[in-house]
């Protein structure tokens, strides 16, 4: 069972806004499941991390990716597209977490096989609730692909 995993769940947060990083960390700190939150600040870093390149050679492949769409260097859509076209990476669930409520962003993300699209609530309570919901759903309910 998932619960019996020996190591904490690895989460990669791709987010350039330090405030959001902090808020996410706050929300996950009280999570039911032990988790390790790894943060990168732009799309290129995210890909380096996922492919274990450069400074991320030793990075652990995440079990879940929280992806913002508005990112410097390489935006979230590109990252999503690359992840979902990579045979190794495409099994990793990607939760798009963004401020945009635009329909085309939502559609586009799902078309790129995002696993879910979540709008960042403006108020704190909402945000915390969302992150916790994500945590609860993806880390406790869903069966994630097995490790290699």
């Amino acid at each position: 069972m998932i619960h019996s995993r020996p190591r904490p769940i690895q989460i990669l947060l791709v987010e350039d806004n330090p405030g959001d990083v902090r808020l996410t960390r706050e929300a996950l700190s009280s999570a039911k499941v032990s988790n390790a939150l790894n943060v990168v600040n732009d799309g290129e870093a995210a890909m380096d991390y996922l492919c274990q390149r450069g400074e991320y050679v030793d990075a652990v492949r995440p079990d879940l990716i929280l992806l913002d769409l508005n990112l410097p260097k390489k935006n979230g859509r590109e990252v999503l597209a690359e992840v979902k076209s990579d045979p190794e990476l495409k099994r990793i669930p990607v939760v798009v977490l963004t401020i945009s409520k635009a329909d085309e962003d939502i559609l586009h993300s799902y078309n790129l096989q995002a696993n879910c699209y979540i709008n960042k609530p403006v108020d704190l309570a909402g945000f915390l609730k969302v992150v916790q919901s994500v945590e609860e759903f993806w880390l406790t309910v869903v069966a994630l692909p097995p490790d290699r």
Partner: protein
Amino acid sequence: MVESANPASAAEARIPLIAATLTVAAMAVAFAANWLWPEFSWQTYTVHSAVEAVAAVASVLVAIILISAKEGEGRSGKYVFGLGLLGMGLLDIQHAFVAEGDGFVFLHSAAVLVGGSMFALVWVPSTGFWLARQRATPWIFGSVVLASGLASIVWPDLLPDMVESGRFTSVSIAANVIAGVLFLSAGAYLVRNPVWSDRLENSLFALVAFALGASGVVFAYSEPWGLSWWLWHAYRLAAFLVLLGLVAHGYAILSANLRLSLVDVQKHRDHLEDLVGERTAELAYSEQRFRAIFEQAAVGIALVAPDGRWIDVNSRLCEIVGYDREELLEGKFQDITHPDDLEPGMALLQETLDGVRDSYVLEKRYYTKAGAVVWVNLFASLVCSRSGEPDYFVSVVEDISEQKKTTEALELWRRNEQLNARIGDAFLKHADDKVFDEVLNLALEVMESEFGSLGYVDDAGALVVPTMTRHIWTQCEVADKSIVFPREEWGDTIWPRAMRQKETLFSNEPSTRIPEGHVPISRTVAAPIVDRGEAIGLIHVANKASDYTREDVGRLDMIARRIAPILGARLQRDRNERARDKAAEELRSTAERLRRSNDELQQFAYVASHDLQEPLRMVSSFAQLLAERYEGRLDTNADEFIGFVVEGANRMQDLIQGLLEFSRIESRGAVFEATDCNSVIEDVLTDLQMAIEETDAKVTYDRMPRLQADDRQIARVFLNLVSNALKFCGDNTPKIHISAEMQNGDWQFSVSDNGPGIDPRYHDRVFQIFQRLNRREDYEGTGMGLAICKRIVERHGGRIWVESSPGEGAEFLFTIPQGGVS
């Protein structure tokens, strides 16, 4: 001859009978005498010669009368009788002087043979008497007979035996019998066919012929100097006496007839005189009538000699050509004929004289005395003399000048119309770059000119010549072939003058003031094209083969007038087009600017609202985190301040959301589809369920239509309007009614409430973005709701407005076209 009563007519009918009886009786007497007194012989030369001489003289006399009377008589048979008697007489005279022997018998026999033969010729058809028409015939005939008679006397040995031992030989008997038969046959002919017009004469002459015939036959039974011999002499004598009687009778008749004739002649003369008088009077009357016709005829009439001299002319002709009669009669028609018409006229005249034709018709021109040209229609017919020689022409001359003028005017009108149509056509059918060429070619053709130009005056006042006769243009060696002539360089030649004076000018003098190298201009016409008092163009032609006439000038003037309105309209059109193009260009660039600005604004609104949310969230989130974690641990001021930060952030959030929504109405709207407004309103009211329950509001709506629209946006409009009505209800329990009705093809919706109403001053302002009428403390709201409604309604092609006054509630109305707007 005039028929007259004849006293002997009773006896006439019996004469043939008498003659036949006489012949038979004579022969019977001769037989009887021969038989009774065979020995009788009375030889007396004197008596014999006397008898023969009397007979001969009678014969010759009658012969002379008959021969000389031949002319004027109808029948030439009498002439032949005359010749016969002449021959007989001449031979008998010689016979009377010969005493005895063969010569004596021969002369007698020859005499009766000649007479009998000639008499018998009466049987020959009259056409055979050609002899009778020769004047010399009696002389020749008489000479031959006389010569043969004399020859028989001089050379008696040459004669056949006529008498042998006191008896006649068969030769002499045969000659006399044959002669007698011939005489008898002539007598028979005369009985049947009259030779004279007088029957008595015919009968008597027949009697003579029978008597001579009988004597010839009786000869066969006679012996010289015997009784029967004397008897037939007596018969012959009797015959000649009858002949003489006949002649005497003829004279008697002749003289009687002559007397009668004289009376007749007198009568005839009188009659003729009467006739002549009558005819003369008739002729005079006829002449008078013809003269009247001639003089009073509505057409000109002339008698013209074959050489062209006027023989007579009537007053109308004088009137047509303006000359006096006397003046005309001195000359020929050629003098006043137009030179161009002379040759065809003379050709026709000659053909008529040559007999190729009897008459001819010709349209020709005369010069009047005043020098004017008069068109006439000439009909000339030739009259010939009795001998067939051309005598004179009768010419009928009709003045057709008026007719000709009308025809020419008509022709001119027709040509002008045609020209007008062709010019109009050229302008209609040809593109701008061709039309000038086309019209110029037309003008050149009409003006029979070698070259020309057609130009217009542009806005700067310069003459622009888009077309010139091409080959001339290339011939020109002028350095500057510019087709734009600026006004200040026009100079003072004929065309600039025409342009300035606005009238058509022409010159038949070679132009001296043309640029060097320009083709020589010998004659020229320049017509300004004047439209509404402005010289807007110029048409200019040159070098006709002959001088330009007033008609030519009028024609070019006409062309210019015709071109004027079309060219004016075209130039105006060009100006309008340029102005319109300019305006369109300005409009287009303005629209483009607006579109770009609008795009930028939308992009800005979107980006701004999007990007503004990020920091706003930070403010709001951490303010809340702060409040959550540190509430009560700081002082009360800090808590209040944190509260303001959170509230401000939330409001900002609403504003940004509203702005975002507003900016997306156009760009993110859905396609219009059939929308049932009933379900739209149901959904809206469901969404507002809580607010309705909270305010205890009463919301009603009529049956709503279906229409083409963006259902989500329409729902948004109703949502905003109903929630506004719920919100701004004042102290009353809200009563809201939604209705819809057809107005001028649009659906007009209404949302009315019983709230405090809106001051008309603010009726426009409420629809503006971020405009609020109330204090925040009184009512929540961003001031975006109605602006969004307005924008949605406008996107649907409708309009929105409010009808209200304070305290009366408010009614928000908007229209949506039934079919929607694409």
